[in-house]
């Protein structure tokens, strides 16, 4: 299965190793790591606490992986997403896509990240010395995901 939700730290090298192991058709590997920053909204944080909807998170990401495979000639996709408590510097999400050529791998990784941000059922809570609060969704992320809809309409025309 190419989608994995985990409470343990994510190791990019381990996640991507199996995408190219034993095969010689992979010409491009694009890896995106979303990393927990030490600041949110201009103030230091102690950690992020991630909640998810078990079952739906895997299914929803899986649907977008299938969509990406339809849109681009991918050889492999690997996604890992942390839940629970994540501290600054740790990887929250890893998306890796392989293809024969770079354009498909770049496009698919970006597409998957845009959808993960807006459609995958995960929620982040900020943990600070002074208390906790939920992070609000960004309109910017909706706009980023929206651009893929436009191109699917164009492709159909």
């Amino acid at each position, binding site marked *: 299965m190419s989608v994995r939700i985990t409470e343990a730290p994510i190791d990019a090298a381990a996640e991507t190793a199996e995408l190219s192991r034993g095969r010689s058709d992979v010409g491009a590997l694009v890896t995106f790591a*979303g990393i927990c920053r030490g600041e949110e909204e201009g103030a230091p944080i102690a950690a992020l606490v*991630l*909640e*998810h*909807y078990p*079952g*739906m*998170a895997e*299914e*929803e990401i899986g649907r977008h992986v299938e969509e990406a495979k339809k849109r681009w000639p991918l050889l492999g996709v690997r996604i890992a*997403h942390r839940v629970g408590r994540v501290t600054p510097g740790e990887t*929250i*999400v890893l998306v890796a896509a392989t293809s024969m050529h770079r354009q498909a791998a770049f496009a698919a990784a970006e597409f998957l*990240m845009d959808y*993960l*941000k*807006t*459609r*995958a*059922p*995960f*929620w*982040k*809570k900020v943990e600070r010395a002074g208390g906790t609060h*939920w*992070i*609000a*969704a960004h309109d910017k*992320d909706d706009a980023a995901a929206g651009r893929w809809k436009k191109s699917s309409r164009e492709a159909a025309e």
Partner: protein
Amino acid sequence: MKVLYFAWIRERIGKPEEDIELPVSVATVGDLMNWLKKRGEEYAYAFDNPKVVRAAIDKVHVEPAAKIASAREIAFFPPMTGG
């Protein structure tokens, strides 16, 4: 029917899930939100601003107009902030 709550909706209602017997008048996801709002203060607080509540039927995103029909589980949650 199983109803699930996540993030601050879960916190406001004070539980992650519950089994609810729905009256026949509750046909859509929007109807269910309105019906839940009347169940008590904590629900009224959770569904205070329905525009920022998202829903899923059987683990698939749906709009408030979606029919509940033969759903096994319905989930309510805020806009996603993963990734």
